[in-house]
C-alpha cells in the first residue's frame, strides 16, 4: 500500500512540483492551498506524512497552527516544515512544535526524498520489534538510526532528522574533526556555514536540557566540530 503524503503549500508551482516528484516515487500525494482546506481533510482522514509550509496564504504562522492541530490528532505522524525564512528555525525549535524536521524551501528534491524515506522507515520499524542494527553507542549517547531516536543517559532527546544526522556524523568518529561542509553533506542539505553553526548550537542546547553537564560537541575554531570521547 502506498503512503499518503499531504502537502500544504500556498504557492501552486512548488506544490505541484513536489507533488509530481513524490508521485513519481510511488507515493500518493494530495496538495492543499490553505490551512482550512487541509484541516478539513485531516479531520476525515489523517495522512501518513505531512509537509507544511509555515507561511500560508494570509497567515504568517498558519503552518504552526496546523501542526498543533495535527499533533493533537496524532502523536506519531511525521511532519516536515518548509519555510522561506530561516528565522523560523529557532522559533519552531523553541516552541517545540513537535515537527520532525524543518527545511528551507529551496531544498533539493533528492534531499527531501531522503528525509521522507527515513521518516517512513521509522514508522515501519516502530511497529516491528526492535533489532540491533544501525544502533551505536558512544558513552552516554545512544543513536538508533532506523528508529530515528537518540538517547542520552537513557533519556530520550528530541532531535529533528537533520540534527540526528549531524550527531551521527560527529559521534561516528569521536575525536575526528568534521568540517562544516562535511556535516552539510552528511545531513543532506546545502546551506552556509552559519546555518550549520546554528544547527549545532540547537543540538547542544537540546542535549544540555537533558544534561546540563553535556559538552561532547567541541568547537575547533577554523576547522569544524569534534565529538569528544569521554
Amino acid at each position, binding site marked *: 500500500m502506498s503512503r499518503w503524503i499531504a502537502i500544504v503549500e500556498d504557492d501552486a508551482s*512548488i506544490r505541484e512540483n513536489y507533488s509530481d*516528484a513524490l508521485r513519481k516515487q510511488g507515493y500518493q500525494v494530495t496538495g492543499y492551498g490553505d490551512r482550512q482546506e487541509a484541516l478539513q481533510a485531516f479531520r476525515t482522514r489523517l495522512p501518513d506524512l505531512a509537509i507544511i509550509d509555515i507561511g500560508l496564504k494570509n497567515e504568517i504562522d498558519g503552518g504552526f497552527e496546523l501542526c498543533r492541530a495535527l499533533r493533537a490528532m496524532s502523536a506519531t505522524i511525521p511532519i516536515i516544515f518548509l519555510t*522561506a525564512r530561516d*528565522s523560523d528555525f529557532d522559533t519552531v525549535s523553541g516552541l517545540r512544535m513537535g515537527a520532525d524536521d524543518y527545511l528551507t*524551501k*529551496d531544498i533539493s528534491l533528492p534531499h527531501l526524498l531522503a528525509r521522507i524515506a527515513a521518516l517512513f522507515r521509522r514508522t515501519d520499524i516502530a511497529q516491528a520489534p526492535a533489532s540491533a542494527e544501525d544502533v551505536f553507542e558512544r558513552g552516554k549517547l545512544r543513536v538508533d538510526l532506523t528508529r530515528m531516536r537518540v538517547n542520552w543517559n537513557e533519556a530520550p532527546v528530541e532531535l529533528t532528522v537533520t540534527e540526528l544526522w549531524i550527531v551521527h556524523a560527529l559521534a561516528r568518529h569521536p575525536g575526528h574533526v568534521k568540517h562544516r561542509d562535511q556535516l552539510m553533506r552528511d545531513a543532506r542539505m*546545502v*546551506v552556509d556555514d*552559519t546555518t550549520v553553526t546554528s544547527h549545532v548550537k540547537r543540538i547542544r542546547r537540546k542535549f544540555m536540557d537533558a544534561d546540563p553537564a553535556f559538552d561532547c560537541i567541541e*568547537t575547533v575554531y577554523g576547522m569544524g566540530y569534534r565529538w569528544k570521547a569521554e
Partner: protein
Amino acid sequence: MAARRLRLSIRAKMLLMSCVLLAIPWIGFRYAAELEAILRENQEQAVLNTARAMATALNDRPSLFQTPTHLPETDASISLVVYRLPHPIELDGELDDWLDQEVELRALGREHVIEQADDAEVAPITLWHALGVYDNDIYAAFEVLDERVIYTDAEHPRAESADHVRIGMQTPWGELRRYIVAARGPGPVTAVQVPIDASSPLAPTLEPRIQGFWFETASGFNLELRLPRALVGPRLGFAFADVDDTQTRRMRSIVGSIGPEGGETLGTAMVPAPEAVQIVRSLSRPGARAWIIAADRRLVARSGSLRAPTPTAEAALPDTANSLLARVEAALRPVYRFVLPPAPILETEPEPYAPLYQGNEADSALAGKVVSARRALARSPIEVLATAHPVWADERVIGAVIVEESTQAVLAVRRQLSERLLSLALAAFLLVGVALFIFATRLAGRIRRLRDEAEQAIDSAGRLRAVTASSAAADEIGDLSRSFSSALDRLAQYTQYLESLASRLSHELRTPIAVVRSSLDNLQLQSLPGEADVYVARAEQGLSRLATILTRMTEATRLERMMREAERERFDLRAVAAGCVEGYRAAYAPRQFTFAAAAEPIALTGVPDLIAQMLDKLVANAADFARAGTTIEIELRTTANDATLSVRNAGPRIPAEIKQRLFQSMASVRPPAGDDEPHLGLGLYIAHLIAEFHHGRISARDREDIEGVEVEVRLPRLVTDPG
C-alpha cells in the same frame, strides 16, 4: 587669500549689544541738565516773586526810606550802620554781648587812614567797630589792635597825648561836636568834649553823658561807649589815634571814619527802620539775602545770608534712607567723588557788607525797571542770582529791593540727581548685563549641545550612530533640534531599509528559486533528449550560483540575529586565532601563513564562533587579493587594555574611492571577473559587525613596508580575572 574671520561667541556679541545701555546714563545726564535749567528758572521766578512782594510791601511808604534831602553826597566808605539791639550792652569792655546779638564788627585799617606820620606803618586792620542802638542809648564798640597801649598820666594829662578815640557828630539840631575818649588806665572812662576848631584855646569839658569802659587785651584794648540818642543826629564818625611813644607822645596815625576836617566830611549813621527790617525778614527765604536801598543807593535795611542753611541735598530727593538703593549709593559714594565734581558750598559770605549796593542791577531798578542778573563767584561754580525791583511812591522811584540767592542748592540737587542716575545706570547695567549673559550662555549652550549631537550622530564611516533626542523647547532652536532629529530618523529608516534590502530580497527570492529548483529536479527525473541535459545542467549551475548569492545576502542578517541572541562567554583569543590559522593552512594550501603571538592566553568576552567567522572573512579577503606566492601574516599584539589582531597581505593598495566605504554593506571593488564566487562586498561588512559586537574597532590601511594592505581589529580585553 581669504581674511581670517574674527570669531565672536554669542556671549561676546550679547555683551557688545548691551553696550547700547550706555544710552541710559547719557539720556539721564541730559535730563539732569534739563532739570537744572528748570530749577534755575524756578529759582529766578521765586526770587523775583520775593523781590516783588517786598517791593510791593514797601510801596508808598517813603518814610521808611528816610532820605535826608538836604544832605549832600557822601563817601560810601564812611557811612555807618547802627544796629537795633534787642538788649542793652553792658559796659564792661568785653564784646561778647555784641557778638551774642549777631552784630557784625566792621574792620578799619590801612585804607581808612586819616593822618599818618612819615615813618609810621599802619596795619591792614587796626580796629574793629560796631554801633548799636537800644532804647534811648547808642552804643559803640571798638576792638583796637595796638602793640603799645599808652595812657595819660600826671605829666601828660591831655587826651591827645595818649591812645585815644575821637568822636565827631552832628546833633539833631545841626550843631557839630567833637569828643575824645582817653584813659588813665583800664577801667571806666568818660568822654571830654573838645572844640571843633583844634586851634581854639577853649579847654576841654567833661561830658558825663558819654560813658565807657576801657578794657586792655593781649592785642590792644577794647572800648565800649554809651551815648545818648538825643545827642546823635544824622552824622556820626569816629577815629582812633595811635600813640606809641611815652616820651614824645606823638600821634603815629589816625584811622577812622571821620574826615580830616570833620564837619561836612562826617559820614552818616543810619539806624535801619524797624518796619523795613520786619518786612524784609518776614518775606525773605532761607538762603536768600535781601537789600533795601534808597534812591541814593544808601542801605536802608538788610537781612538774610546767602550761607544760611538751604534745603539740603538729601532732603531734595525723596527720602529713601533705608532702601537698598540708598545703601548701595552710600557704599559707592567714594567712587562717585572721583567721577562727579563735589557739590560746591559757600564757605564765606560773599561781599558781607557794603553800605552802598555795588551791583549794576540797582541802577536799572532805581530807573524803574525790574531786572535779574547772575554773578559768578570767584573760583567757584556757584552763581549769585540777584533780582532788583523798584519801590514806588507817587509814581516816583524812592528805592529798590534787591534779593540775592546762590545757586548752591540747585547745584547740590543736580549732583544728587547725577549720583542717583549713576547708581541706577550701574544697577541697570549690572542687571541687564547679567540677565543677557545668562541668557546668552544658555542659548550658546543649547546650540553647542545641538552641534555636538550633530557631530556625533553619524560616525566616521557615515553610519548612523544614535538618533538624537529632539528638544521640547518651543522656540527656533527647539524647531532646529526637532527638524534635525526627524531628518536623522528618516535617514535611519532609509539606512535600515537599504541594509535590510538584502535580506528582504532574499526572502522574496527563495520561493521562486524553490520553484525553479523543484522544476529542474523534476525535469531531471524525466527522460530527456541528450541536448536537453546540457541546458538542464547549465540551468542547475545558474541556480546554484543564485542560491549562493542568496545565502551570502542573508548571511549578514542571520549574523545580526545570532549576535542578538548569542550568549557571551569567556574564551582565549589566542587559542581561537591559532586554531583558525591551522585551518587556513590546510584550506588555502599552498598559500603560506605566519602567525605571531605571545605565548600567554588572551582572555576576552564574546562569542568565539563569531571571532572565528570574522577572521575567516579577513583571511578570505587577504587571500583573494594577495599576490601569488606571498605570505599572509597574522599577528596578535596586546596592551594592558586591548588585543589587536592584524591580517596583512602583499598586493594592491586600497583604492581611494572605496576607502571610506570599505566596511559598509555591499562595497566591493573587485573587477567583475568570470570566477565562480560572486562577490557581494559583504565580507568586510560582516567583519565590521562582529568587531563592533565585541566592542572593538576595525580599520584598514595601506602597508608602509611593502605594497599591501593591513586590516587591524582592536578588541578590549577582559581586564579583571574573576578567579
